[in-house]
């Protein structure tokens, strides 16, 4: 195994990844957070101005509430809430409390938690004075709304009166009486009673304590109606906010992380498929997707000795030339490199296989090629996506990630879906086609690849042709109609012309537009064939692309039941002891007791007779002992064996395979069915 050379590569890459991710997250949540902040600042403007308007009096007991719909990916919510509370503390109020259902089984716990969080935040601001500590500890005895109100009055009074320079900037950020924001992270899990009580209590004090509630909702806002009766929900002034859907979130992440040349590390098709499948099939969690991605990076740099070369182009030259002889041998052993060598003429073959320096030069060139390939790949992929994403029924998928997977998997132009999407593309109307071509031009212009000058020119040429077409088409129409008029006189002729028309339409006659459309589609096709070749056909792709999907699957798709079954059924799998190796269904008496007991219990039905089980167990254990010992204990089971059996059975019970049965005294019930 090679030690990570010069710098700790994965750390650097993961760090840069994290920075990039954070940026993305912030951008994604910006809209939502802005909306929320404006809502919060609006919510207690009445409280600020102390207005006594006629309308205000009407809804004086309503608590401003934001219902935040976050989607079912509960694991991602933490991040959103953290971002939210940071933003709130920066811009609106220092008093933010985050409540979770598991901390609040009763209203008492909820109040304790709430007051603890609010008053602690105050201490942090006020630089820990002894006096405050005493005050807080006294308050903690009485966890009720009145004491919270009095605390709030104290705090706001203090910030009002105090004008030293230290306090100045913090109080200027917030208002005179900032609202107190209470965030319920998981609305669904709160019990009805706790929520109702809290809302009723706080609505009593809304005059003295400008409270704002934020409900984090994972399912649908109907949950509010389900949890709260009308008498309580009429105390709330609910506004709805919706966060970005997790699928869109993923698309952005894929777009920004995978389809760039910013990171030298790339995911192979199978690995990407595994990650996306986990996302779509199991959890919808973007966090887990990112964690999986990070795991891929670590795994790649850990298991692939040549991953030193997986770096930015600027460092590449230095790294290639510092390769040792062993590392060069490693390169020579790569399957893709071997394929490459076989294609070269014999003189070069020998040089590649024997001369390290020549190899290094070649490697550098190949890696640069790979880099260029990726850049081009991304641009053309985006162009193709422009076409496929607007076709009916989306034969190649709606999202760019689906297209990406299809292209990485194999040569996309050989698939049926590609064929059918080309067919559909040949039926596009002109306006769509023109707008798509314009988009493609933009994409290619903005890409960093150098080879696209010609392509852009060609596409622009198509565009001008389409414009020219408009003029000529009008002429066409008039000519044909004239012809029709001429021949209308004769019935026989008319019939003949109609037949001809029909014939021609079927066989050959294409308008200019159709010709051009064919040309465009064919051109796109050639681009695809040229640039969208799958990555694993490229030489040295192993260095940059991580493709060990089975390893990743082993890490991410834990299968405890299967693992347990394997361990008990086939202990050799984990223990690697030759003596345990057995073939087929036979039970070796060398195996651990629990394995024997487990195997025996697999043969039983719903209820297991303990006596029979013990018999079978002792037979297996005694199988290879000497015959005289067998004779001695033929009628009476050995105490030691009995003890071993009981221990094994209780271990099995601990693992949850069996439980004592009440139906029959000397029986146990199986809790699993089948052999897993």
């Amino acid at each position, binding site marked *: 195994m090679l030690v990570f050379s010069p710098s700790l590569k994965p750390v650097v890459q993961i760090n840069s990844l994290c920075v990039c991710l954070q940026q993305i997250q912030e951008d994604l949540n910006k809209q939502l957070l802005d909306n929320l902040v404006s809502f919060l600042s*609006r919510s207690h403007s009445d409280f600020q101005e102390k207005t006594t308007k*006629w*309308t205000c009096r*009407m*809804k004086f*007991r*309503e608590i401003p*509430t934001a*219902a935040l*719909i976050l989607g*079912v990916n*509960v694991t991602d919510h933490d991040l959103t809430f953290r971002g939210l509370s940071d933003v709130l503390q920066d811009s609106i109020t220092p008093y933010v409390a985050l409540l979770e259902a598991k901390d609040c089984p009763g*209203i*008492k716990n909820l*109040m304790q938690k709430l007051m603890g969080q609010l008053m602690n935040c105050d201490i942090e601001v006020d630089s820990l004075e002894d006096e405050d500590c005493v005050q807080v500890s006294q308050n903690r*005895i*009485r*966890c*009720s*709304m*009145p004491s919270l109100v009095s605390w709030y009055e104290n705090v706001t009074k203090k910030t009002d009166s105090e004008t030293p320079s230290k306090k100045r900037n913090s109080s200027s950020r917030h208002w005179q009486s900032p609202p107190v924001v209470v965030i319920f992270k998981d609305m*669904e*899990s709160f019990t009805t009673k706790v929520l109702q*009580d809290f809302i009723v*209590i706080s609505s*009593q004090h809304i005059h003295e304590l400008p409270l704002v509630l934020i409900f984090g909702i994972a*399912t*649908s*806002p*109907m949950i*509010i*109606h389900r949890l709260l009766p009308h*008498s309580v*929900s*009429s105390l*709330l*002034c*609910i*506004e*709805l906010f*919706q966060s970005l*859907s997790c*699928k869109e979130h993923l698309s952005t992440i894929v777009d920004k992380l995978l389809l760039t040349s910013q990171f030298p590390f790339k995911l192979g098709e199978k690995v990407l498929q595994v990650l996306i499948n*986990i*996302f*779509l*099939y*199991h*959890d*919808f969690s973007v966090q887990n997707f990112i964690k999986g991605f990070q795991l891929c990076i670590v795994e790649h740099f850990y298991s692939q000795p040549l991953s030193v070369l997986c770096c930015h182009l600027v460092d590449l030259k230095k790294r290639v030339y510092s390769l040792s002889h062993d590392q060069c041998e490693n390169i020579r052993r790569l399957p893709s490199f071997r394929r490459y060598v076989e294609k070269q003429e014999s003189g070069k073959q020998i040089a590649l296989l024997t001369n390290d320096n020549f190899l290094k030069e070649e490697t550098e060139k190949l890696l640069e090629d790979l880099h260029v390939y990726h850049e081009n790949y991304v641009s053309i992929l985006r162009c193709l996506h422009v076409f496929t994403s607007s076709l009916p029924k989306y034969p190649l998928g709606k999202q760019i990630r689906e297209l990406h997977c299809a292209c990485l998997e194999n040569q996309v132009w050989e698939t049926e879906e590609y064929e059918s999407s080309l067919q559909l593309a040949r039926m596009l109307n002109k306006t769509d086609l023109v707008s798509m071509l314009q988009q493609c031009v933009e994409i290619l212009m903005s890409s960093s690849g150098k080879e696209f000058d010609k392509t852009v020119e060609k596409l622009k040429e198509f565009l001008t042709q389409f414009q020219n077409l408009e003029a000529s088409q009008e002429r066409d129409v008039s000519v044909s109609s004239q012809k029709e008029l001429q021949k209308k006189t004769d019935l026989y002729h008319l019939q003949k012309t109609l037949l001809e028309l029909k014939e021609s339409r079927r066989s050959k006659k294409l308008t200019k537009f159709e010709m051009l459309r064919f040309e465009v589609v064919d051109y796109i096709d050639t681009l695809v064939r040229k640039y969208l070749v799958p990555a694993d056909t490229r030489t040295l792709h192993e260095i940059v692309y991580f493709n060990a999907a089975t390893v990743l699957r082993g890490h991410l*798709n*834990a*299968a*405890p039941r*299967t693992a347990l079954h394997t361990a008990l059924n086939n202990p050799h799998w984990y223990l690697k002891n030759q003596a345990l190796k057995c073939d087929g269904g036979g039970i070796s008496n060398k195996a651990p007791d629990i394995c024997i007991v487990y195997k025996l219990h697999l043969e039983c039905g719903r209820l297991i007779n303990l006596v029979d089980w013990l018999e079978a167990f002792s037979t297996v254990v005694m199988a290879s002992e000497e015959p005289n010992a067998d004779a001695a204990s033929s009628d009476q089971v050995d105490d030691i064996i009995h003890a071993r059996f009981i221990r094994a059975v209780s271990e099995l019970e601990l693992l*949850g395979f069996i*439980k004592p049965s009440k139906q029959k005294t000397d029986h146990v019930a199986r*809790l699993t*069915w089948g052999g*897993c």
Partner: protein
Amino acid sequence: MPNLEHPAYPADDLLHLESLVPCRESQVSTLLSIFGERQQFSFPSIFIYGHTSSGKTYVMQTLLTTLQLPHVFVNCVECFTSRLLLEEILIQLQGCSGTEQTSPVRCDTLNDFVRLFKQALATQELQDETLYLVLDRAEQLREMEANILPAFLRLQELTDRNVTVVLLSEIVWELFRPNTGCFEPFTMYFPDYSIGHLQKILSQNHPPEYSADFYAAYINILLGVFYMVSSLEFLWFCLAAANERDTRKLWKNIEPHLKKAMQTVYLREISSSQWERLQQDGGEPGQLKGLSAHTHVELPYYSKFLLIAAYLASYNPVRTDKRFFLKHHGKIRKTNFMKKHEKTSNHLLGPKPFPLDRLLAILYSIVDNRVAPTANIFSQITSLVTLQLLSMVGQNDQLDGPRYKCTVSLDFIRAIAR
């Protein structure tokens, strides 16, 4: 209506009080006659009940503050433990006298309370006047320790002081009475406001720019629409929301607005402030999606199947599993008939609990490709439970084969299965 008359209180105060509590004059006069004069001992406990927004709290509060009777007013919802309740009473009592004693009171039991209560009364100049202890939302008292409610009912006797406890509640006294028996309070019923009452109350508060008659007519219209469904609080709101724009128009102009308001705001589909903004902009409420518009829940692939499997397991009897989910079951004709018959009855019965194994077995049979029993699947089941789409039945032992129930409706499942 009889004017309020009582020898103990000045006539001015009584007149003022009468103007503050319209349509509740008879109740107030009854209360006054029970209270008697300031120094007279009154009935030990009074129980007042009536439907939501029938003015119980408001009448009590105005009565006590206008006549400046010494009183303590506590909302029992706010004091969720008996200790909080007792301490809250004591704190308010200290504040009553005006002498600022900030020493923290500790009062854990009723015994302490009686002692401290006596002390508090002794230190103040309240000995010669009746102290009124009002417990709003008194139904909460039933959930506290068993001795709290009976003790409050005979507090006068226990403390030997001039005190009257007033309990306010929305439910009848019969539901309060403890098994062991207790002192019976004087019960009093506040009837609902009639439509005429409401009209009178609402028109008291007309905005200055319109004449009182006009406003009364407007309220008349409003009540015609809303009287059946809404509470007093909501009417207040409606008045506020619709007022500025609509009063000049005819009934026909108002009606659609009110109906829209009823559909949206009353059910809390959109918030009142959003409504106000809409009204100001002159927009249509259709632009704003209500709460129930977002019913669709996006779920991961296997979660969908798990939920569908759970639904099937909850609403189909076990014996039909073999017919529905095995490939070779036979007897198709009969199955169809049975299915229809069973479905209706099972939906009326509600979801039944099912063991985890059955859920997984159904899952395996309804998903096309093979499903590996990975940890992901199991964690999805738990997350469905936390999302309240499934619920766990009998949470005694995890190893003991957990049982679940499906809590979502057929419509929800239909939307998911699409």
